[in-house]
């Protein structure tokens, strides 16, 4: 291979330009705006600003409401990520073993993914409605009166169920294709060595799926943190009340519902830092132990 592939020194930069432009316009510029706005108190109509230094950060980080939202975000993200990974993987393994009608099962399991988050939220609202919700009637059989919108935990559980349900097919698709890329010879060799299919899964198949699992974990964490907004907004019916809320939803509430742009910007900068830290941790620590073939 030739060492000089570009005639001009500027060639590579020119080719990078479109990508850099996209990143600058859609990420760097708004991010810089948010950082800048987070140091001010802003009048919503005219944007006249009063410099307040780090006050917006202090206000957010010392508020009980913010602490509660952060706590819920951690639980919500952990539960949704693990539930989607676990159930999605289980369904994929099961579907992989099915010999007859394979495609029908797969299609049925996948098509939930085509539902947009707000629609999923609306379905959740109806299923968990206090007066007419079928799932509320179902839970009542076990002697629990489920009150979504009144009880914090009932609402939290309903949100987690709807958010997980929506994301399971995504996990399913990726794990299934991961399973199909494992060579048959490996499976057959394992089958000779060990009779227990469960043990074979954990010692042979699961490690071979590690790159897929790692990727899905990152994607699902991002999903739970950011893309569940539509579901949450619909399930609380626009009234936060005493309902659980994630940090992203709180950014929206304070900024767009409450018109406190400075405070909301500070919260989104905090989120940005969290995500940055999370990404570094994931890639530095976890990826080291995972081997892509």
């Amino acid at each position: 291979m030739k060492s000089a592939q570009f005639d001009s020194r500027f060639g590579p930069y020119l080719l990078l330009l479109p990508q850099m432009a996209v990143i600058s316009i859609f990420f760097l510029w708004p991010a810089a705006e948010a950082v800048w706005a987070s140091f001010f108190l802003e009048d919503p109509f005219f944007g006249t600003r009063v410099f307040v230094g780090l006050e917006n950060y202090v206000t957010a980080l010392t508020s009980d409401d913010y602490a509660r939202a952060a706590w819920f975000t951690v639980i919500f993200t952990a539960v949704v990520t693990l539930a989607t990974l676990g159930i999605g993987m289980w369904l994929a393994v099961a579907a992989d073993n099915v010999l007859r009608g394979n495609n029908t099962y797969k299609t049925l399991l996948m098509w939930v993914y085509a539902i947009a988050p707000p629609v999923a939220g609306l379905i959740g609202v109806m299923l968990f409605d206090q007066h007419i919700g079928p799932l509320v009637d179902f839970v009542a059989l076990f002697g629990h009166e489920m009150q979504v919108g009144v009880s914090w935990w009932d609402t939290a559980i309903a949100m987690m169920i709807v958010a997980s349900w929506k994301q399971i097919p995504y996990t399913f698709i990726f794990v299934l294709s991961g399973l199909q890329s494992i060579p048959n010879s490996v499976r057959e060799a394992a089958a000779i060595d060990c009779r227990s299919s469960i043990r074979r899964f954990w010692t042979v198949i699961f490690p071979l799926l590690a790159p897929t699992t790692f990727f899905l974990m990152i994607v699902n964490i991002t999903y739970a943190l950011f893309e569940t907004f539509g579901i949450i907004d619909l399930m609380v019916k626009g009234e936060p009340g005493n309902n659980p809320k994630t940090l992203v939803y709180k950014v929206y509430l304070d900024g767009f519902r409450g018109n406190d742009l400075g405070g909301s910007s500070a919260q989104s900068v905090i989120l940005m830092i969290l995500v940055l830290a999370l990404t570094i941790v994931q890639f530095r620590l976890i990826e080291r132990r995972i081997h892509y073939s």
Partner: protein
Amino acid sequence: MDRRSFIALTGATALSTTLPRMAHAADATKITLWHAMGGRLGEVVNEIATRFNADQSAAMLEPAYKGGYEDTLTSVIAAFRAGEHPNIAQVFDAGAATIIGAPGAVAAAEDLLAETGVAFDPNDYIDGVRYFYADSAGKMIGMPFNSSTPILYYNEDALKKAGVTPPKTWEEFQEIAPKLKEAGYVPLAQSHLPWIFTENFFSRHNLQFATNNNGFDGAEGTKLLINTPEIKMHFARVKEWLDAGLFGFYGTGWNDNQAAFETGKAAMWLGSSGSFGGLLKSTNFPFSATFLPYWKEITEQPYSTFIGGAALFALSGKPAEENRATAEFFKYLSSPEIQYYWHKETGYVPITKAAYEMAKMDGHYERFPAAEIGILQLNERAGEWTRGYRLGYYVQIRDVMNREYGRIFSGETDVDTAFATIESEANALLDRFARTTG
């Protein structure tokens, strides 16, 4: 949201974009109105626009539904900053401080009418309505539009079955509630704790709600007087009722609580006088309404309640001929015929004395006695603290109240702690707001 109102909502959205455009004339001055009236209310707004457009040819009004009250205000602000705002924006009671507190964003309705030579007399308007959207000097900034006040609806069958009459005071409620429970009903539900059990609690008992003349005299240094014995007593009792099965709480959402009444589960329900039109369609039992109860131990005789609902604000930065069209529309809107139509179809209070007289003459209140409750309650004796309130970041303050009230009801916190929290968080928000306008 139940299915019915969802369908009504989507239907109204579709209608709002098509209906008024069918009427006409290319050379008419186009003006836009962004509103938050969904469902049946949106249909009535469209009908008023259609009538206005048919009635004259100089101006053409295009109404657009922008979601709930909060969403509408947010859309208006975003559009204002981009210079693409509508001529008229409907802003609700809790958002009044935000829009009035931004000097230069709004052209005062009174000035607009005067400048364009449209006749205007503040005394045409009923008292309660006149002050809420006025500045501290009494000049009308917003044009009152859908004005409502909280009233008590009751299921006549349920009360007959229990052998009780609707309560005038909370003391009477405590007497009759066990009988309603025995008859198999949840005695009482309500749809908006900050509005009905907080703001109007202060007005009904003529208690000061905030310093600086309830906030009208300026945002700086305004403090909410919420951590006070009377309201804490009220919430302590409500929590007792809840625990004893005498009060039903179905969350912060308006419809979840209204549904309890509509399905016949709750015998009485505190809602808006503007809910009347909707209830006529959604209930299949005879219902009527009476005044918002008060505590006799606080005041012997009750005072009038605050006006709720929303007003129309003419936004600044529009060409003179459009402002003229806006003023014409304001005038048309407050004409007795349109006011009476709006009142009759929705249950919102007529804002002018003439419209109220017209409704009386027409025998509307003989047919529907419940429809008069709202306006009678607003016309009860006024007190020092019944004019209204003007508080910044009030949407967030209401959210804080809703959160803490929910925590009281679920037993996560007690009344003393909850009100101390509301006080400190609300005052911190008021202080932040004062600094954005300063």
